């Protein structure tokens, strides 16, 4: 068809406007959170000593660093889903959580004796962590990928990575509520490994499903 004819068709189609990506994400977020929290409560429950844990810096740090990852991932995701949006600052912000974790590792290494580094790193539930963080994150990742179909990411892989950071940040925070390994050394190995799995999935899914 000729271009002027196409334009006539586009103008005639003015009635149907897709929901904005912000609204789609706002709808996806509670769905993902709800399913993951349900997984937690039905599957594993909270750690029994959660009230005591809340008083320790290591446990609180787990929540803070994962939620920072989630928020920075969300910020990058929103930027990455709109053509021409300024993205440099959002890209930098994503490094906030890894840098914080790096600092916490240094603090941990200086505050516990070298002999127990291995003990803290290996922890008690490494396999759990590798399986459950992706499990708790997957519902939100799926919901976000569906929501991002409303966007127009010029780099679908990057949008997928950002969505996976957001989803795994929340997923890891939820997982942290039942995980008794609180050392930053444990986080730096196992949480990071679990999140890396999700990032690879997010990038692949983004490239596959977020073209437009």
């Amino acid at each position, binding site marked *: 068809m000729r*271009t002027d004819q196409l*334009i006539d068709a586009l*103008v005639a189609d003015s*009635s149907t406007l897709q929901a904005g990506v912000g609204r789609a994400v706002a709808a996806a977020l509670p769905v993902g959170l709800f399913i993951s929290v349900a997984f937690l409560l039905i599957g594993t429950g909270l750690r029994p000593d959660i009230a005591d844990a809340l008083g320790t810096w290591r446990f609180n740090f787990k929540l803070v660093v994962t939620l920072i990852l989630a928020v920075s991932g969300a910020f990058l995701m929103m930027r990455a889903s709109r053509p021409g949006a300024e993205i440099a600052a959002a890209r930098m912000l994503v490094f906030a959580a890894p840098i914080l974790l790096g600092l916490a590792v240094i603090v941990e290494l200086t505050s516990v004796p070298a002999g127990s580094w291995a003990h803290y790193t290996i922890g008690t539930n490494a396999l759990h962590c590798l399986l459950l963080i992706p499990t708790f994150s997957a519902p939100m990742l799926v919901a976000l990928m569906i929501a991002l179909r409303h966007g127009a990411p010029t780099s679908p892989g990057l949008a997928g990575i950002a969505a996976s950071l957001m989803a795994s940040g929340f997923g890891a925070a939820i997982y942290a509520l039942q995980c008794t390994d609180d050392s930053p050394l444990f986080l730096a190995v196992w949480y990071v490994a679990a999140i890396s799995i999700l990032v690879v999935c997010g990038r692949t899914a983004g490239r596959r499903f977020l073209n437009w």
Partner: protein
Amino acid sequence: MKKRENEWAEWMRAGLAGDATAYKRLLEALTPYLRMVLRGSSAASGLGAADIEDVVQETLLAVHLKRQTWKTSEPLTPWLRAIVRNKMVDFLRKRGRGGQVQLPIDDMLETLAAPEAEPQLTPEDVGKTLKLVNGRQREVVRAIAVEGLSTAETAARLSMNEGAVRVALHRGLTAIATALRTED
């Protein structure tokens, strides 16, 4: 040119608010500049007029189907630039030509040169887009685009209700955009 950006953004805002006349004005104003910008890019060497027109149409479809991703408080040009570049890159990738695409799109706003008119296309080129959709959707798109009927006239012609015509039109256009993106 600031004036052109403001004018286009104004038309787009009105279009998003449901003003079909302003929206049509925008798309019609955009088209010749898209042609010029795409032709002016170094990546366009070796592409014929019909190829350029394909990218123009893909860009217009993307502008239309993704118009909700433009924030009305922001300038239109950076959004537009990202879409055109994306569509050009996609097109070249389909042709097995990767690499960076530099588009003189800022010139699009500055230039005083005469934008290019629609090239004369062969009947095959004109007909091929419609072949990308089937059944009712093709009939609806053909009636509205090629024959210039309104949705009401199309509904009467095809014995459908107007809502169904709108849905078929929207799905047809989405299907065309998807097929153009993934063909070859």
